[in-house]
């Protein structure tokens, strides 16, 4: 992991130097994400798939950092790579690997999935090629201040003003709470 | 079956000129007497009949199947094989012998009934020990006392392991100190001290000589 990726724009500008997020990093990380993503769906051993998925997530984290979104990157590591994948592994480890690895891996829906993937790819390509022309007003401006604070402002509001997504955020957390309670009730014999 | 009376005291031969008091700790005087024993005839105390209300009670109940003796202050019953379950249960339930100290056996190769099985019991309330002995033949089985004292489980397994005596009703009668596939029961008198299950050693430990 190259620390230079992590720089904030402000300090970089202060230092009088250009940021170092070169295309090479992008291609490297993107390639890693794609290759490990393929491994996720092709490995027969579930633990190997999970490990590949972690690599994918970490590669995506690197991409976030390149986009000057360190907070999102940190959350990605924290929540996905650190938390969710750990629980995944936890479950997979206790599953009978020998049996599951003999199971048929692709179900018959794979043409549909392939079509969906191709459609998604097409969408991305379009956005990439024609994006600036299609949505000129949404062109991303380089963030002035740290985007951590912007996220905070959107979620919680600032200077006495309610945030844009405060309500949605709280509702989502309530939903999660319900999910947790449901899981407890389902697994525990006597609550 | 129960009427088959047996000589009451198997091991100690009756000759012996001194009869010490039933009290256990012999006085130094008797120690003096015991000491100069010539190799030919060991002098020593002999068992004397054990008299107590407990003995009276059971004597009356079981008659000749039961013999009560005291040797060096230690009381024991020599009991017919068929009375064993009753006697043990009564001793535990009515006489408060709540602690089974030990179960073991002695092998007499020459005798017709080759084995003595010995229960050593202790009563916490009475602070008293008693031994119960019975004779069984080789290959005969004996009821297990695991239901009376849980501790009998391993003790009986060890007796089985070492002597090959079967205990009926034991929950898990298998070898305890020796490995499962072992042949022979080492504490029998016909099992030599250098004897080994060579085959087992060769197969399981891979030692060619088997020793």
């Amino acid at each position: 992991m190259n620390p230079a990726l992590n720089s904030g724009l402000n300090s970089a500008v202060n230092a009088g130097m250009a940021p170092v997020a070169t295309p090479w990093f992008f291609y490297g990380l993107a390639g890693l994400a794609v290759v490990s993503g393929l491994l996720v769906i092709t490995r027969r051993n579930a633990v190997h798939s999970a490990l590949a998925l972690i690599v994918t997530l970490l590669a995506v984290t690197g991409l976030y950092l390149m986009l000057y979104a360190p907070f999102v990157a940190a959350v990605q590591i924290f929540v996905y790579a650190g938390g969710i994948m750990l629980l995944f592994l936890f479950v997979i480890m206790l599953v009978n690997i020998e049996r599951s690895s003999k199971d048929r891996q692709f179900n018959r829906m794979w043409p549909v999935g392939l079509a969906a993937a191709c459609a998604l790819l097409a969408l991305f390509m379009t956005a990439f090629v024609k994006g600036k022309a299609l949505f000129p007003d949404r062109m991303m401006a380089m963030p002035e201040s740290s985007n951590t604070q912007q996220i905070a402002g959107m979620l919680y509001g600032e200077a006495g003003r309610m945030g844009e997504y405060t309500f949605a955020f709280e509702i989502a957390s309530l939903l999660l709470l319900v999910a947790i309670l449901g899981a407890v009730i389902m697994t525990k014999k006597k609550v | 079956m129960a009427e088959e009376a047996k000589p009451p005291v198997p091991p100690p031969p009756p000759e012996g000129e001194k009869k010490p008091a039933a009290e256990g700790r012999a006085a130094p005087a008797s120690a003096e007497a015991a000491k100069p024993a010539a190799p030919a005839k060991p002098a020593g105390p002999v068992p004397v009949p054990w008299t107590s209300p407990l003995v009276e009670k059971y004597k009356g109940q079981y008659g000749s199947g039961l013999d009560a003796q005291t040797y060096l202050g230690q009381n024991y019953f020599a009991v017919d094989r068929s009375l064993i379950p009753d006697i043990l249960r009564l001793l535990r339930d009515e006489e408060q012998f709540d602690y089974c100290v030990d179960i073991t056996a002695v092998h007499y190769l020459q005798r017709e009934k080759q084995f003595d099985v010995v229960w050593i019991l202790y009563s916490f309330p009475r602070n008293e020990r008693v031994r119960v002995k019975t004779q069984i033949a080789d290959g005969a089985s004996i009821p297990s006392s695991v239901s009376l004292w849980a501790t009998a489980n391993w003790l009986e397994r060890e007796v089985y392991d070492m002597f090959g005596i079967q205990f009926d009703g034991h929950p898990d009668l298998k070898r305890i100190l020796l490995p499962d596939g072992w042949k022979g029961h080492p504490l029998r008198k016909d099992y030599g001290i250098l004897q080994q299950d060579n085959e087992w050693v060769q197969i399981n430990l891979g030692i060619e000589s088997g020793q």
Partner: protein
Amino acid sequence: MNDSTHDVSNRALSNLDLETSEKPYLDSNELIINMGPQHPATHGVLRVILKLDGEKVLGTECVIGYLHRGVEKIAENRTYTMFNPYVDRMDYVAAVSNGLGYCEAVEKLMNVEAPARAKYIRVILTELNRIASHQLWLGTHALDIGAMTPLFYTFRDREEILKIFEKYCGARLTTHAFRIGGCQYETYAGFEKEVKNFLTFVAPKIDEYEELLTTNRIWIERTKNVGVISALDAIALGVTGPVLRASGVKWDLRKAQPYAAYSEFDFDIPTGTNGDTYDRYLVRMAEMRQSLRIIEQAVNRIPEGPIMAKVPKIIKPPVGEIYHSIEAPKGELGYFIVSDGSTQPYRLRVRPPSFVNLQALDTMVRGLLVADVVAVIGTIDIVLGEVDR
């Protein structure tokens, strides 16, 4: 003979086929896990097969016999005198107690009694040995629970006891201190003084162990209500020694059926109430202090006189049989000897306290966690040399 180490891996697990109650909503697999014979916490070569649900213990089975040397068979082929050193090899941590029990049993069979001075020397050495045994227990038990420091403290202090043994009889561990009829050796010059010095040396050390553990929150949480055995269960399982006393049964052979010179000393029998690991710990700690009391009285009142009763050179007990037991550090150590009038025992049975106490393991650990199994094995205080003989 190398018939002592067997691979018993093909043992059936029949003991573990327990009822598996009703299927829970989300079924989980039971795990059969093998603890030992090479495991740091099984104190030698004990092998415990655990049946686990997650980390919860559903059942155990002890596989023993890895150290079986056939002591009882050896006894039948050795003379009474020759067999005397062998008993030290059973509970090698408390070799003096083993010797005391054996010598007293044979003496009883021969109807002789050791002289008073010999009895006092026996009491002093046996009680020193009890302290040493308990110290070793404490160190290893604490180590099992994760407190590694007490081990070194107890070994430092146990060393002083071993030094006294070494000076007395030349051996530290397998002492062979006593002979049938008394003691072979008169005490060396300065024995009393050294023992007294030891008493003043070790009393504050016991406080030191207690300081590390007795009020330690983690220690209490790890031991309180762990491995509980009720007095009734303990009696039914034939458990003796500190384990029985911790369950609240005030029973000590030194008081109940005094042997050696114990009837002449003033000491208490410490007991517990809950029968848990913590109580057993407290009982043993208190026992060490009581042993100090006994030693102090004995060393102050030690009479002059012979140390050997008049026994013939060739020991030939009369025909008969005897059971004699003493309170070894681990519990009731009994010898059942059948004599046919010859120089060799016709049958010698050892009633080993560790062996019988170990049987209570299953009762104690059902429903506990793996970590508790370790704590409970430690608290039973087994020595595999004695379990397997």
